[in-house]
């Protein structure tokens, strides 16, 4: 879990847009249904294949179940990657956690007062219709630009960060916690 500072409050918690995950899930659903579709449409298969399927229906069912379990595990692996990909905006920081795979995790952290510029990028018909896009945050830190991809309503996220930035600049923190 991400540790917050004692006086830190979460203002917004947002995951990546669900569409890429849903597309992956749809692909897995089709893959899971394939062996069972073989059973359903066995009548339209060549006679030799039909005979083989009816003679070995139990082993076929066993393999289909094993296949289903493998698909089930892959689905939860994808879901975990989606679920752990998160953007947190607090009153002090912007924390972007990108789960690149089960063994690759990228955590970027920007202090609100270091943010210099925020840019919203919405490219394509689908992104425009469904209101998702990328957020580019320029900072005064070592890494100049952070890109947070596939966020729902990036304009609203930008507004929250900008408002918090203004608040922090009006009342700058007196002392920075040591790293």
């Amino acid at each position, binding site marked *: *879990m991400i540790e917050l500072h004692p006086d830190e409050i979460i203002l917004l918690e947002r995951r990546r847009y669900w569409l890429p995950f849903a597309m992956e899930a749809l692909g897995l659903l089709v893959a899971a249904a394939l062996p069972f579709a073989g059973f359903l449409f066995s009548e339209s298969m060549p006679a030799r294949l039909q005979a083989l399927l009816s003679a070995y229906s139990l082993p076929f069912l*066993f393999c289909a179940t*094993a296949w*289903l379990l493998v698909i089930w*595990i892959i689905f939860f692996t994808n879901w975990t990657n989606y679920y752990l990909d998160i953007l947190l905006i607090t009153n002090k920081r912007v924390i972007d956690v990108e789960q690149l795979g*089960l063994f690759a995790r990228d955590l970027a952290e920007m202090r609100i007062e270091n943010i210099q510029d925020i840019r919203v990028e919405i490219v394509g018909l689908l992104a425009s219709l469904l209101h998702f896009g990328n957020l580019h945050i320029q900072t005064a830190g070592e890494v100049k630009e952070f890109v947070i991809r596939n966020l729902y309503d990036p304009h609203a996220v930008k507004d929250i960060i900008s408002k918090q930035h203004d608040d922090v600049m009006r009342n700058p923190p007196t002392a920075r916690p040591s790293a």
Partner: protein
Amino acid sequence: MNEEAIRSYLVPAAAGIFLAVVIAFILMSVILDYHWRRYGTHPKTLVAVRVVYYGVSVVLLAVMAVLIYVLSR
């Protein structure tokens, strides 16, 4: 290869597949559970996720075990 010979290989093959799937399931479950515990942000959601994940997985493993039993008879 005649049908009888094929059938004699079915049960050991199914048992091997079952063993491989169980090992993969245990390995992946340990990894996934670690991620949910270590990086998860909503404990209540994760309890529901665990119930669904383990519930369905156990049912599928049980179906496989029953099919091996039926094949071996």
